[in-house]
């Protein structure tokens, strides 16, 4: 497994080139190809939303970026470097943070132990705890509770807390809003917007376009394993309704 990543941090990349770039990426689960040549660019410091119906391949794109799934063709570049072949844990320690869909916590660890795991990306536990409890006071009250016994929404907060505290260069978020109360969703996206203002580049997948379009700089429509259209939210207004109704 060869990788041309040096130990340096992604964020050391300077200039305004794209932080994440996918070129002709194909990927499959076993024999079934799910991505058929995806091209996508996430400019430094911007929020890009992946939109599309059930099963379009949004989560798969994120998996490829995070290193959990190796592309069968094409290149994934982070800060200009090809990262094909790098494993998820290497990427995580280099400043990429992924919040997977639905199951972002270790159910048999306590809240605090879950946060402890986040420190493997190279931050200190006290920092992580401070940020997490400040953003989500609920977590602070429940440090010793097993994550698996928390409500669906509380678990989502816990997994989000990692994204906020490890100080990543690139953040990948999958279905952030699922199962969350409207107020929490609004808050979370506010936070996402803030984080991006601090210079973090963010790629976020959402089934419900409405929630994310308010803060996204660009949106990419994913259909049948291809990115069919990229543009600013305003440009995409029409396509969006077509994509959902027509699929």
């Amino acid at each position, binding site marked *: 497994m060869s990788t041309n990543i040096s130990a340096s941090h992604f964020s050391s990349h300077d200039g305004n080139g794209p932080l994440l770039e996918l070129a002709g990426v194909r990927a499959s689960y076993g*024999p079934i190809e799910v991505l058929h040549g995806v091209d996508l660019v996430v400019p430094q410091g911007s929020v890009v939303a992946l939109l599309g119906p059930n099963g379009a391949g949004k989560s798969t794109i994120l998996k490829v970026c995070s290193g959990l799934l190796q592309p069968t063709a094409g290149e994934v570049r982070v800060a200009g470097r090809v990262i094909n072949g790098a494993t998820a844990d290497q990427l*995580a320690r280099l400043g990429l943070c992924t919040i*997977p869909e639905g199951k972002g*916590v270790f*159910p048999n660890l306590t809240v605090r132990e879950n946060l402890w795991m986040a420190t*493997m*990306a190279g931050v200190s536990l006290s920092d992580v705890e401070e940020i997490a409890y400040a953003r989500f006071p609920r977590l602070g009250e429940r440090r010793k509770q097993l994550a698996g016994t928390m409500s669906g929404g509380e678990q989502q907060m816990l997994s989000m807390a990692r994204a906020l505290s490890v100080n990543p260069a690139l953040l990948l978020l999958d279905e952030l809003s699922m199962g969350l109360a409207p107020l929490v969703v609004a808050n979370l996206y506010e936070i996402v917007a803030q984080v991006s203002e601090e210079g973090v580049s963010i790629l976020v997948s959402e089934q419900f376009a409405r929630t994310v379009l308010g803060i996204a700089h660009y949106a990419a429509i994913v259909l*049948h394993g291809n990115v069919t259209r990229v543009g600013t939210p305003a440009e995409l207004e029409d396509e969006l309704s077509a994509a959902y109704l027509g699929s």
Partner: protein
Amino acid sequence: MQQFVQYTILGLVLGGVYFIAASGLVVTYTTSGIFNFSQGAIAMLAAFTYWQLRWGWGWPAPIALLVVLGVLAPALGAVLYQVVMKNLRGTSEVTKIVVSVGVMLGFLALATWVWNPTASSPRNFQKFFGANAIVEIFGVRITWHEIISFVLALGIAAGIRFLFVRTRSGVAMRAVVDDPELLELNGGRPERLATISWAGGAFLAALAGILITPITGSSMSANALTLLVIDAFAAAMFGRLKSLPRTFVGAIVLGLTNYYVVAYFPSSWTWTSAFRQSIPMIMLFIILIILPQDRLRGTTVLRTRERFHMPTMRTAWIAALVLVVVMFSLQTIMQPSPMKTLAYGMTLAMIALSLVLLTGLAGEINLAALSFGAIGTIVVFHFGTTGSGLDARMTLWGIVLASLVCAVVGAVVALPALRLRGLYLALATMAFGVFVSKMVLSEGNPRRLFGRDFTIFPGGTLRIPRPKIGPVDFNSDKAFLTLVTVLFALLAIGLVAIRHSGYGRRLAAMKDSPAACATLGMSVVRLKLSVFMLSAAVAGLGGVLMSAQLGAVSAERFDIFLSLSLLMVTVVGGIGYASGALLAGLFLGCSLLAMTNTLTKLGADYASIQAIFAFMISAVTVLPATIGITMGKNPSGAVTDIVKGLNDIKQARPLMFTIIGFEVGIWLLTATDVLTNWNFVILTAINLLVVPPLGGAIMKKRAYAKAGVAPPTPAEFIGIDRAYTQLDLDEMESVLGFDALGVAAPVLHEGEPAHAPA
């Protein structure tokens, strides 16, 4: 008083060693979700290896210890994880259990192979610093070995707890079980952590093995040593496989009880020694009763990797008929001795069928199927025979009674564990199995009960006659083989019928989500109980017939290791299928025996190279274990592959007719004494093993030539945007000519390549 202190100290020490063994179990369970049955076997191997280095080859103790504990044991654990356990992710509990049982049996076979148990000079295993390194505390003499053991136990307890709670790596090890992918996303290395924790688990097992061997003063027997550490299961269960402090308490109580029984039970009680040996299992049972109920909460049961498709009733009838016809044809050309072997295999298959019912359909586990056979046998012996001497026969009433009693005993065994998860029921049955072996089957002498003399298992051997039902006498080998074959066929059809019935679906539903079942109005405990009783009854029936086949049975026939082997081989065959049970029975009852017999005979014939054959015999005994170990790769069992192959053959008519014709031909030749039985066996093997793949390859080529298409690729794009519709499948089938190849359409859903070979 002096005596009390003495025994208390000894009990504490034994408890400490139990704890070390139990902590190894807890470590591997918390970090990989696998309850490691091979823990005891690793301890045993370590003890033997240490003996070899220390006394066999006379190495100094520190070096021997360093090599065993510092190098070999951790390496073994790491290799075990990398080669075997890693593949178990996403499999069901029974597969996990069976694989670690396979490892255990493999190590056992290995140890008896390397360290011949019948060696002339006994192996002498001494305490550290020798038996005379003694200090006096409170006027009691204690060896340094014992002090070291207890101190180590305390240290390990503190150490592991510290690791798992206070260090990030320890917490990360616990996180691996929950979600290795998420750990990777966090920046952790799950593979490395799991390997390390298995190395640690093996180290603890090895340490326990080396410490415990001289303490119990038992001679070095591989079986006994393995079981000794299995005693630690009770302690681990007391901590629910999680809590180390509770495990410690459990272990200490276990150790103390052990010595207090020795000290204070009247020596006139003849069963004291048997009782002492069963204490851990009795305690395990009590623990299961007092553990609070598992909450029926959503345990996001992910879909496990095992896949069993359901044969139709028609297939079941045809298969059953084929089985009976084949057996009948074989009978006509067979000599009595292989016929006996075959009948033995069929009775084992019947017992295996009880496992298919319980595990394949309901997802529960019984580790002591043969112990129910033992209960049935005892019942028949006492209440189910008529006549005496050569005229003795088993009665129908005896058979029915034996099955009923087994069902009731099954209920008693299972009831306490039914409220709990599957693993607990599995362990309850194992406790029961050990209890039966140690306390029931050892009852060779009369006891006075209610003023009457009664012997449960007189003389250690029971003579069990064959049955006579109504006017039909099944005493001859032929008649008996027919009986068991027909019975098996009927039970197998019944099993398929159950799978197709509402009862079968309810079992499947219960297996998948007890919580959902309860909220639909199902009494989960009652359903579980019913299927366990049914299964125990079948096991009892099979056991009774097995005893009748053997004629005289001793306690070894019902050994817990045999039960474990049978379960393992059934899972290897395919725990979801009656045919899996058939394979298991025949393999364990016939093939193994046939192989060893053949090799022994060859060895006798060619005395000059006898050593080679002796080696091969040993290798054969390791065989089942090695197969069991590979289960992780193909958890659905061999039958799944065989069925696929059969389908191929069925579609390729000419091939099928060739095979059947050839087989009938050699049968005729054998029946007319042109061929010997041996030639028949060899030719059959060739016919069944070599012809299908060869012929299949030829047929496949022809099919493509006929369809006149190059294997197309675009098919793979379908199913990405939308699911396969039946239309797509039809189209694909017609294009690819799958019809002719017999590749079943659903295969595409299972992620098999849609590419066809060029």
